[in-house]
């Protein structure tokens, strides 16, 4: 190898001839190829492992659960013989609708403020961001404790649908805010400029141009939130509790499907039915994911 003294001038440093250092064939090529193969193998194994875990998990639940999907599990009314999941299923829908009815407008409006109105870098924006991130990180058991202390006890709502729905609404609020925010940011500024350029005000621009364009993104956020609500247990046992009936008012206690499954499993009396319920829960999650896929597809098409 040629030694080059540090004192040499720039002119000397230009390349007399290429190929000074780097052989183009031989062992270096082999090393490079082996490294490539090793890395390729590594990522494939990891992906395979992930896939295997999923297949095993799902397969296990299906194998154990499907034989237990007897008609009485879907009877209209719950009793201790059939441990029907129908009321819990309906309650899940009601609970989801109720929580979303609270959190969706809040989340969308908050995101509109963040993206369209707030001054970047203002103090309030920072605080809103930090608190939203905090909310997103809080574990459901802490939400459960809070819901119990605040909604159930302090506001005297008791164990009730409304206490559960408010707790869940706070829990999913950051999800909706974040996805809406991203969807709004993704709307090209040229749409806004176009609208302003025609003399439209901010409100009109937001509601007639920006929001419709962001709708698929917002919808996928709402679906994401739905998934979290459907799967939630810890935050609900301390707030909405467990009555296996369709509630007569928002102040009635109610149990969702996930809570239903948890309770069924507890005393060990209904293990078969627990698996059956798990299958239904899984199907529900699949349907929700499918919906979000559909929405995402719509988004891609535009």
């Amino acid at each position, binding site marked *: 190898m040629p030694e080059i003294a540090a004192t040499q001038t720039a002119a000397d440093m230009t390349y007399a001839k290429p190929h000074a250092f780097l052989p183009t064939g031989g062992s270096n090529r082999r090393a490079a190829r082996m490294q490539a193969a090793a*890395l390729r193998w590594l990522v494939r194994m990891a992906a395979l492992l992930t896939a295997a875990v999923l297949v095993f998990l799902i397969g296990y639940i299906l194998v154990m659960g499907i034989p237990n999907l007897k008609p009485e599990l879907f009877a209209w009314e719950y009793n201790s013989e059939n441990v029907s999941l129908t009321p819990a299923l309906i309650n899940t829908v009601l609970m989801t609708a109720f929580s979303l009815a609270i959190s969706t407008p809040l989340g969308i409006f908050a995101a509109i403020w963040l993206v369209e109105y707030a001054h970047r870098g203002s103090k309030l924006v920072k605080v*809103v961001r930090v608190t939203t991130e905090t909310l997103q*990180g809080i574990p459901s058991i802490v939400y459960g404790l809070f819901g119990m202390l605040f909604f159930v006890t302090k506001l005297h709502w008791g164990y009730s649908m409304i206490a559960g729905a408010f707790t869940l609404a706070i829990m999913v609020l950051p999800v909706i*805010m974040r996805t809406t925010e991203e969807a709004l940011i993704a709307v090209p500024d040229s749409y806004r400029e176009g609208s302003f350029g025609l003399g439209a005000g901010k409100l009109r621009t937001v509601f007639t141009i920006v929001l419709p364009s962001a709708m698929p993104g917002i919808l996928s956020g709402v679906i994401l939130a739905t998934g979290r609500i459907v799967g939630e247990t810890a935050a609900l046992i301390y707030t909405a509790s467990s009555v296996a009936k369709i509630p007569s008012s928002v102040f009635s206690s109610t149990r969702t499907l996930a809570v239903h499954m948890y309770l069924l499993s507890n005393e060990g009396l209904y293990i078969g039915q627990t698996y059956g319920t798990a299958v239904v829960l899984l199907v529900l*999650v699949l349907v929700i994911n499918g919906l979000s896929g559909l929405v995402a597809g719509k988004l891609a098409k535009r």
Partner: protein
Amino acid sequence: MTSKLKEGVMQGVFTLCACVSILAVALICIFLFANGVPTLFKIGPLKFLLGTTWKPGNDIFGILPMILGSIYVTAGAILVGVPIGLLTAIYMSKFASPRINKVMLPAVQLLAGIPSVVYGFFGMIVLVPAVQAMVKSPFFKTVLHVKSGKGMSLFTAAVLLGIMILPTIITVSKTSLDAVPDSYYEGSLALGATHERSVFYAVLPAAKSGVLSAVILGIGRAIGETMAVVMVAGNQTWMPKGLFQGLRTMTSNIVIEMGYAADLHREALIATGVVLFVFILLINLCFSLVKGGKDYA
């Protein structure tokens, strides 16, 4: 002018909605702290935080075992989940064909959507016996000198949580990998690097902060997970004894005993929730620091 008025009113409404999250966090803080902090002082902050014995029946409330338990289990979950998750994300982002991704993506979403109760059930019935059989095997006895391992253990909980945080790690890392401009990848290829080298040495470093966010989010999820850990961790209140011994996390402590606790015991459990909440706040702080760093660069 009416339209000006309307604009003003709606702007106010939007601002108020944005402040709801502030209100929520404030309420959560107030109600948890108001219930937990006095308890903390009733028991004695040091006695509570550093006490190594938890015997509610005898009014001894030390949660150090649970704090350590949460930390160990979370660390274990990260050790299991991050490498697998990150590599899977790399695979999906840079190696898999669109056809494979069409299956993988919903699969990962499904993994994320499965309720924790179901994970816990699965862990209890499949993972625990498997680990039990593993630690009882001659290899563990003679080669690794693991004398008395249990199925319900730190190891099992870490593996189960590692699986549960996979979707978080995968989606967040994949998003940040996808967001890396192609120019880095092309720049590397143009220097004669292979596809694999380009991905690992040029694209991955560029996604560093995203991967770090993924890890921090994973930590947050793992430390907060409740229903699944309870079923597989053994839940002993002793100081954590080893990889193949049971331990109890803060979340388990709350969910296990809340049902039967009364008086000071119940308040001590709420105080445990406060400690957990503080942990989460710290993790969030790290998260914003990491993200803040990214904005700065």
